[in-house]
């Protein structure tokens, strides 16, 4: 009985009121774009202060959407919306919560170049040979994370060592490592 009356109610409602939804949908109080579902997955957004350029989003992307270009001082993390399936794995697996999928759905464009979303991270330089290394922020963040997990007896020595080590690339570390006076030290 209950099911049938509910069905009748819905049928009468659909006959009387307008089914067509408004376009465009609702808007946030502070934001410009409209949304359909508040937590829906749409256009990407980078938090430029948080992003360290660690490539975790590139490695995890199932559709080869995110590519990374290294050019001298800059590393650009670029998302090509044309390939994206909006699965949200880059958002879930980002260690810094820097990339987010906003509920914006209106990203149709008349040129292909508008479909790229870029973020530029600066890279650090090797003191000895002048070659460009990983991004500055990534090295800093990695150091912090290691220091938090490392054994207390080694922490102080490690902290001093990393200050010397991190300015050089891996090849130069092998070549001029003996001048740093860090290898012969007793750790505990």
């Amino acid at each position: 009985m209950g099911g049938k009356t509910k069905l009748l109610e819905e049928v009468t409602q659909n006959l009387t009121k307008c089914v067509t939804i408004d376009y465009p949908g609702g808007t946030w109080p502070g934001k410009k774009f409209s949304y359909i579902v508040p937590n829906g997955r749409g256009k990407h957004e980078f938090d430029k202060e948080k992003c360290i350029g660690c490539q975790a989003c590139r490695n995890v992307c199932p559709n080869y959407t995110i590519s990374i270009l290294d050019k001298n001082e800059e590393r650009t993390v670029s998302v090509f919306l044309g390939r994206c399936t909006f699965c949200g794995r880059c958002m879930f697996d980002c260690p810094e919560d820097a990339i987010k999928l906003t509920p914006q759905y209106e990203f149709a464009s008349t040129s292909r170049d508008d479909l790229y979303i870029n973020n530029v991270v600066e890279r650090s330089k090797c003191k000895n040979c002048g070659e460009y290394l990983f991004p500055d922020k990534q090295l800093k963040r990695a150091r912090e994370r290691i220091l938090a997990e490392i054994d207390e007896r080694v922490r102080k020595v490690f902290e001093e060592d990393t200050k010397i080590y991190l300015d050089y690339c891996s090849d130069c570390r092998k070549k001029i490592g003996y001048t740093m006076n860090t290898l012969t030290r007793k750790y505990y």
Partner: protein
Amino acid sequence: MNLKQKSRLYSPWVFHAHCGGCNNCDIEVAAVLAPRFDIERIGAQLKNNPRHADIILVTGPVPKHSAPFLKRVYDQTPKPKVVMAVGGCAVDCGPYQRDDGKGNYALAGATDKMIPVDVYVPGCPPKPESILHGVVLAVSKLAEKD
């Protein structure tokens, strides 16, 4: 704006060219035609003949087999015409092709390698609302070409 241009802009007719793929974009296009997302509010209508159409709506990664047909459809539509690439496959072959430049043995490439594309609608599949937004963009593009 004369009467001919006005009537064209207020009732753009759409031809849907299906070029392979998983049919998910086609289901979304069907949803756009239905009363919930009603595309007829902007006067657009689906036509089964490219000779009647103003907008060509392409879905799917274009396989080698259907590439000549897509070109023929493009030649058959009268000017001015606008091409929409709907879905990740039509924009850049999507999950069917890796991004390493080798390509897929069965595909002829993205839509803009065959015919000039005016409006890109990304998404996998695109939401019905974003297809609506794409059609509105295509109409504004038609007004420029007229």
